[in-house]
């Protein structure tokens, strides 16, 4: 099987500018040799009938290449290294592709059947086996072309890895920026690759801890707009919002239960920060921790049976886990982290096997991953002020906040640590990313 090796170093800078839309420049840094990353050729899609001389706003092949590279599992050939540029099956010579060392080939063609409406036809080939793996015909509006490219990446990814792709998902995050010498805070949503940023809330007071509901329709967050922290929920589609808790003291760290019916959260109304579960329909509150230390940052396991949380009950912040059943804690919390003197802000992987969290050693705050079964811990980043890790819904990547120069930026790392990326947003200090759940799957992969 042909293999392509990329030895470290900066890959390629992708910056597709969409007129009139805010976007992030995504720098892909390949931090180690991607041995094991599958070499793939994504040929620029051909232009079919109906397009005339029209310029398309999106280069679909480029978006697909970038998506596949971001996952850490694929090494797309750069365009100049493509040995041929077929668009139709009859032009494909798999023998030639085999010699060039790729395992997989993607070709496609776009045509327009009426103004502002397109039909995209793409095919995926296994070069080594010499066979077509799948093909799809996808209609799209002009505005939906980028999303269609992400759907294509999802289909390819799932076909080749067996794992669902997360390229058509979204991220929410907070941006703090100075506007006319006053700080402004905004809650934003963007595509998972940083494009199409939209502000859904703008405030003169701090916003924190955004988190998507399991159905992707709402975002819960903490707001200081009333002079003290309150937990709020906002409908993404309409912008309707309401205060959920405004107890004395802290109202913080809201986390959706997997069934979307309750939130775990932190309140200090009973004397010091503790974990509670709030039933959303009845607003009934259930206390989970009872301890003089700080207990905060709860995170649900995907089966809804456990809560991981940060506790300083042992002196310094560490991650603990407690079983919950019908909103009650079962037994005593067990400590999970034993390396380093600061471990906080855990998040479960979607399959429940891993925890990601912030792990500090000698003053450097990094993102780490703990395998729950074995207790093995691995640091995924090597910077100094990393925080707020959040898994992609397919568990393949972790998005987090970090600093570059003097600015807060978002970054993502593949769960094996091989590939790291940085989002450079155009303005402000960006922090607290939350990765959305999967949307509805528009296509089935055959």
């Amino acid at each position, binding site marked *: 099987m042909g293999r392509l090796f990329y030895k470290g170093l900066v890959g390629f800078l992708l910056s597709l500018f969409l007129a009139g839309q805010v976007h992030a420049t995504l720098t892909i840094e390949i931090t180690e040799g991607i041995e094991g990353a599958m070499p793939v050729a994504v040929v620029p899609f051909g232009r079919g009938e109906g397009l005339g001389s029209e310029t398309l706003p999106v280069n679909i092949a480029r978006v697909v290449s970038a998506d596949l590279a971001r996952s850490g599992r694929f090494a797309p050939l750069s365009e100049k290294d493509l040995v041929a540029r077929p668009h139709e099956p009859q032009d494909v010579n798999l023998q030639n592709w085999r010699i060039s060392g790729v395992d997989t080939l993607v070709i496609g063609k776009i045509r327009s059947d009426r103004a502002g409406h397109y039909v995209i036809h793409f095919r995926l080939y296994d070069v080594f086996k010499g066979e077509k793996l799948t093909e799809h015909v996808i209609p799209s509006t002009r505005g939906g072309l980028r999303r269609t490219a992400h759907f294509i990446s999802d289909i390819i990814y799932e076909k080749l890895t067996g794992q669902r792709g997360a390229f058509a998902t979204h991220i929410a995050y907070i941006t703090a920026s*100075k506007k006319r010498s006053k*700080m402004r805070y905004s809650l934003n949503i963007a595509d998972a690759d940083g494009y199409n940023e939209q502000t859904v809330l703008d405030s003169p007071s*701090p916003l*924190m*801890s955004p988190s998507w509901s399991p159905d992707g329709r709402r975002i819960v967050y903490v707001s*200081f707009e009333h*002079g*003290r*922290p309150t937990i709020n929920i906002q409908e993404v589609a309409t912008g309707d919002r309401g205060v959920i808790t405004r107890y004395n*003291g*802290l109202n*913080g*760290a809201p986390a959706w239960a997997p069934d979307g019916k309750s939130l775990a959260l*932190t309140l*200090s109304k009973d004397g010091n*920060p503790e974990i509670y579960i709030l039933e959303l329909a009845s607003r009934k509150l259930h206390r989970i921790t009872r301890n003089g230390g*700080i207990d*905060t*940052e709860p995170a649900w396991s995907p089966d809804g049976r456990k809560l991981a949380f*940060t506790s*300083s009950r042992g002196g*310094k*912040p560490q991650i603990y886990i407690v079983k919950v059943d019908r909103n009650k804690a079962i037994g005593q919390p067990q400590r999970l982290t034993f390396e380093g003197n*600061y471990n*906080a*802000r855990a998040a479960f992987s979607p399959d429940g096997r891993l925890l990601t969290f*912030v792990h*500090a050693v000698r*003053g450097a*705050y990094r993102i780490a991953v703990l395998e729950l079964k074995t207790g093995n811990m691995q640091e995924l980043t090597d910077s100094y*002020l990393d*925080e*707020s890790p959040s898994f992609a819904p397919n568990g393949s990547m972790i998005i987090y906040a970090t*600093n570059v120069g*003097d*600015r807060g930026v978002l970054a993502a790392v593949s769960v094996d640590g091989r590939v790291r990326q940085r989002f450079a947003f155009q303005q402000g200090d960006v*922090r*607290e990313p939350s990765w959305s759940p999967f949307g509805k799957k528009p296509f089935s992969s055959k």
Partner: protein
Amino acid sequence: MKITSKLIILALSSLLLAGCGTTGGDADGGGAAVDDRSTSSGASGGAAYAGEELNDPNSLLSKRVVYFDFDSDSIKGDFRDIIKVHAGYLAAKPGESVVLEGHADERGTREYNVALGERRANAVRQMLILQGASASQIQTVSYGEEKPAALGHDEEAWRLNRRVEFVYQR
């Protein structure tokens, strides 16, 4: 955003001025306030408070910020005097109220830092009450690391951000 010393000075000045609202000019506290709360030794601040003390740059009352060590909510020696004076003021002026804003430096996780800021504000609150202020005069809020006084990623900025601020409500 480059940190310049100008910015820090500006930030500090605005903090110091933050507590100064319109001058009260009230004369209700003409005489020395008789303080029956004898547990408080701080009532020795029992000198008359006329109304301008909060704005007097020579008075410890003009100091509105208490600083803390990393990951700590212990009140260090130097700051006890400041708290004592504020306690005395509050004790003498039952009509005055203050909001204690707790903060943390940027290191560590954000929600944990909100809890840490609250601990610091509570520590100051406790000391104020022990020294004569009434609980009803004091409110606390924590901003964690969300409202830094100094923008920077070094020890000096972090030191300036680990703080509790007295914000008098006038």
